[in-house]
């Protein structure tokens, strides 16, 4: 589970590190977090700041950045676990979404159950054909849903399957991983683990 949590929760830990980050470093780390669109790992930050900066100093700087933004109602520093790596990103929280929607009513409608199930099958079972999705869900795939998923840039064609009718095979994109905060498909839990506990183990 990659729950979002704020490193500010650990702000009290900074005293244990004993190394106060210089103010310049805090500001630099903050600027890097603001300008780089992707979440940053300690290694990525270290490579940008300079190798001579100790990782615990960087971590202390991150805690300072988190503390600086803590009073802000809409912006926070989030830490996530992606592929076994901890990454940080300064983001606007979901609290801004009603305002963004007000400014642009056509903005990203929520995903229907049908869309989520279709996306889940494509993510876990790729490459998968439309027919296979229909077999798994027991209903015809609404073309509108595939269009919606493609328009969000999450689903793409992986070519055609070498079988009668040459059906198109679908898979997820790099943008899908990025939008769901995943490093790779391996970050998704095993599909067989979704069997219920009252069912036999597969």
């Amino acid at each position, binding site marked *: *589970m*990659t*729950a*979002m949590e704020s490193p500010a929760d650990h702000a009290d830990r900074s005293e244990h590190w004993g190394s106060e980050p210089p103010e310049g470093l805090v500001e630099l780390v903050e*600027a890097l977090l*603001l*300008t780089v*669109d992707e979440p940053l790992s300690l290694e990525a930050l270290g490579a940008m700041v300079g190798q001579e900066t100790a990782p615990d100093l960087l971590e202390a700087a991150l805690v300072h950045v988190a503390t600086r933004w803590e009073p802000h109602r809409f*912006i926070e520093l*989030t830490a*996530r676990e992606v592929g076994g790596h901890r990454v940080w*990103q*300064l*983001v*606007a*929280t*979901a609290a*801004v*979404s009603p305002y*963004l929607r007000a400014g642009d009513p056509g903005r*990203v409608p*929520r*995903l229907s*159950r*049908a869309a*989520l*199930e279709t*996306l*889940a*099958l494509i*993510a*876990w079972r790729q490459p998968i054909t439309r027919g296979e999705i229909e*077999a*798994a*869900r*027991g*209903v*015809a795939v609404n073309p509108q849903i595939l269009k919606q998923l493609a328009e969000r840039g999450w689903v793409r064609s992986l070519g055609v399957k070498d079988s009668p009718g040459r059906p198109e095979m679908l898979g997820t994109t790099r943008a899908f991983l*990025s*939008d*769901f*905060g*995943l490093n790779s498909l391996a970050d*998704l*839990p095993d*599909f*067989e683990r*979704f*069997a*219920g*506990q*009252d*069912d*036999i183990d*597969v």
Partner: protein
Amino acid sequence: MPQMDARRWVDATPRVSGQPLEQLPLDLYIPADALAIWLEQFEGPLDLLLYLIRKHNIDILEIPVARVTEQYLEYLALMKSMAIELAAEYLLMAAWLAEIKSRMLLPPEPRNDDEEEPLDPRAELVERLLEYERTTRAAGRLDKQPRRGRDWFDLSIEPPDRLPAPAVPSDLTGLIAAMQGLMREGIVRRAHHVRAEALSIRQRMTDILDALFDRTSCELAEVFRPEEGRMGVAVTTVAVLELSRTHALDWSQESPFGPVTLFRLAKKATDPVAEEEMPR
């Protein structure tokens, strides 16, 4: 069991003060649309079947097909009465359930390999239900995953395209020191670009002879190509010198700094390359 969606947890029996309400008060009005909306939420026959099975706490591996079929058909009838347009898949499932039901009544078909137990007519249905259940849970898991554009939004401050010019040392000694530093840097970090020959002297000699193919003279400026820069000047100069050395051409200049004219000497331009090995 991870919570998928609220609907699965909605107990269909209405309750009053915690007690299940078995019979609806006669004067209670339930808007027909409300029920229709609830029924329409099913994502298909597998979803409806799974709902019935889970609602009655039925072991999915031991589905009482007769009972489930009956309930399934009841829901179908309800949906029909609500004028919900039923997808063909619902009817297909009804037919499949009826088939399984009748197979269950028949003695099991003998199998070729009598080692295993006879095939359960429900096996495929169970497999598809389990697969669909995993799909709904995977979808629920995906929905819980923090998502860009819903749970967070990227902040982006664009850095300036051009970095500002570095501050110049304000006093002379600082400037001189900086210059010295750069000079030292220049000595240490001299770059050596090793590149393949971009312009060929042989080719240029041929080009110049081509220019003189159908006339006896031409301006030197004609054979220069300004776009080639210094390298081009050097290559053309060497080519002209080589051609004059092999007596293929000669040149004259009317006045100092005036235009240089090239003259063809050989009767007919020949390829000098073939005759003599040329320096590169």
